[in-house]
């Protein structure tokens, strides 16, 4: 499985995280994995599959800030 971030929708510059099956360079059709409303990207996982980490950016009229979030797999 390959996870990556790209525009949430066509012509929408708010990032969302997608995933697709991959075999070498051949990938399946991607499906959405996580969607904002904040811009989220750079997904990474622990090897045991129990932790998921990503960066997110909050952008508004006052400016922008980026932080890091993590979550656990549902028990």
């Amino acid at each position, binding site marked *: 499985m390959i996870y990556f971030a790209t525009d949430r929708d066509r012509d929408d*510059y708010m990032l969302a995280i997608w995933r697709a099956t991959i075999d070498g360079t051949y990938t399946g059709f991607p499906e*959405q994995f996580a969607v904002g*409303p904040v811009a989220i990207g750079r997904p*990474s996982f622990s090897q045991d599959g129990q932790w998921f980490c990503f960066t997110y950016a909050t952008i508004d009229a006052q400016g922008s800030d980026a932080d890091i979030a993590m979550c656990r797999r*549902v028990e």
Partner: protein
Amino acid sequence: MRKILLTLTLLTITILMLSCNEGKSPTTPTDTQDFKIAAARWNPSNTSIEAVNITVARTQDGAMELPGRDITMTATSGSVTGLTDHGDGTYDAVWTGAPEGEVTVVATDNDSDPVVQTSITFLALEYLDPEWEVPVKLAAPVSTDGWETASFLYPSGNNLAFAYITLDWVALAANIIRPIGEERPGQSIPQTLNIYIAERPAGVNPQWWTGWTVENAQVNLFQSLPMYLSAPMVTSDNSMAFCTVQEFNGLGYDPTTIYSLDSGFMNAPTALGPPVDMTGLGEDNPYYDVTRGWLYFDTYDLGDPLSKQNIWAAQGLEYRDAAVYR
């Protein structure tokens, strides 16, 4: 005699009042470590995070359960309702609201003197795969007022590499220098992207998003001129790492290029060079699948910030001799 009686009466009333207070609040813990908070998806099968169960545990000295406390919870958006005292020192309530991003819930024990509070900041997302819990913002010193980006969780899950700059990156893309955070200890050159390594505290920590320590990576000393080091990545066998470097050319920054280095981010990195490095394009976000020998990365056109990015894969006897692209 009347004066003595009056004094005794007042003393008795005072003692009675103290006894009443003690009866209402048997203990007044002041250690915030005794007030733990957690968040969980109310209904994981609902892919939109619009309801989150908030649980707090109030104990004395980490052991004695404290039921019957006057606990309140507030949120920066949405509402927290249905607070329930389970009689064993745990209390829970449900946050409901729109999936609008960051939400901070603050729980307060009003029976403590001084008042004790604990908080959690989670992300209410429009969509998240149902297999995953509500995302929680890592507390300072990982997430701060500055720009933390390009995070990478190590295979162990106990370390995290990320890049940091004190500036608003979106404003910077529009050539506006807008400081939003403080320089971190060890920062090599101010207002440049440096790589930092965060480490989770050892042992069991129910509030796993707190207590991390952060250190500046030695690879940042590689900077002699201002440059951006970012997009750190460590292979699954912990044998090597990758990052990106963007050099300052006197007028601005060159396109990003991919470098490899030791997994401790300690020594000077080595540029992969062509054919991974394609002159004129920026290469970013390297991920090396060490078991299959594929290097994945994306490219962008520095001259066109809105240009479409593409994902590439390279494979060869060594990634430096990558011969296959797509």
